[in-house]
């Protein structure tokens, strides 16, 4: 048999096999369940409250804060510089270019941490990089930074430093209000003035 006939037979039979094979869809960019679990366990994509504070105070341009709460809540209050992409419109045409990009690191946040973590998992599953999540959400951020409590053990200098940084951040966010009241209270009791006594004796 001629080699070209053999080749033709091979090609036809291969394509016949291809026709029988079931259609399959692979997704090289998507993570499987184990890989996702591993990422979540390691907390690779978590941004802590203090780290977020530093990003905001330094106006770090490499980060983009994305508020996933509904627009009504965003209008009432949000973090400085944050944009609002409500969770349900996260992957819509209007916003996808913010989520699927290589330029900046996105930080998702909501009041708690659940919805933003879900958004992160979904975006990781879609193969998007550069997305992070504010661990614990706005609630934890308020608690740890804006309502920071002094460390119980004042000997721990590291904890004290963090506390001082948080106090400084409070001044950044809240202005003068943040200053602890008892530090600036001035006792305004009138100082008693002693009566001058007439000079007595001497050589007057």
């Amino acid at each position, binding site marked *: 048999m001629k080699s070209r006939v053999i080749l033709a037979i091979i090609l036809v039979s291969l*394509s016949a096999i*291809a026709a029988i094979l079931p*259609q399959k*869809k692979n997704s090289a*960019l998507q993570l499987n369940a184990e890989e996702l679990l591993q990422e979540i366990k390691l907390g690779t994509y978590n941004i802590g409250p203090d780290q977020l504070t530093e990003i905001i105070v330094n106006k770090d341009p490499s980060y983009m804060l994305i508020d996933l709460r509904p627009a009504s809540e965003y209008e009432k209050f949000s973090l400085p510089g944050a944009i609002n992409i409500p969770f349900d419109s996260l992957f819509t045409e209007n916003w996808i270019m913010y989520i699927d990009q290589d330029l900046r690191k996105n930080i998702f946040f909501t009041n708690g941490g659940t919805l933003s973590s879900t958004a992160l998992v979904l975006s990781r599953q879609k193969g998007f990089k550069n997305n992070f999540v504010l661990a614990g959400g706005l609630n934890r951020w308020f608690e740890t930074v804006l309502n920071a409590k002094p460390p119980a053990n004042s000997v721990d200098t590291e904890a004290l430093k963090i506390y001082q940084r948080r106090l400084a951040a409070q001044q950044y966010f809240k202005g003068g209000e943040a200053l602890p009241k008892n530090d600036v209270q001035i006792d305004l009791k009138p100082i008693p003035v002693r009566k001058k006594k007439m000079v007595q004796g001497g050589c007057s």
Partner: protein
Amino acid sequence: MGPIIPVHGISEEWNLLIAFLIGLGFGFSLEQAGFSSSRKLAGMFYGYDITVLKVFFTAAITAMLGLIFLNYLGWIDMSIVYVNQYYIQSAIVGGVIMGVGFIAGGFCPGTSVCAAAIGKIDAMFFIGGSLIGILLFGETYSLWEELYNKNFLGSLKLSSVLNMKDGVLALIIVLMAMVMFWIGERAEKKFGREDIMKEV
């Protein structure tokens, strides 16, 4: 099993180098198949030599089957394989220009570079012509813009338009190719031009 080449793990420089090596291989194969001869290429249109059809169509069906099997084995993700975008008008007008240029010049863009590389002067003129064409198109783009972007259909796949499994379509195309090759070879016998082909 992951993709054969981890696209996202390769830097731009490596990507270009790989493209360069593939390009060298492609050029070499074209030259070896005799595609640096405009007579052989033009033979396709006159029916005395259908090597072009056979080589390119065989390459296409081989690649097609390869992709289908690689996809089945999970070695490739077809959703990130680039599919040429389809603009109806552009495709028709471009096809006509390409066809006329092919018959008139005796080369297609790839083979002209190949032929120029082995020192064929007509191929060098052909490349010059293509570059002038590109320049003219670029400079007058605003005139064509509307026609160029008309009826954009995105990255269409024939199998999804026909609502068919990739494999079934592949089988049909392979059978079509076999019939075409058979008809082509009969044409070769009928329109054979020994006088021209001897020199090739």
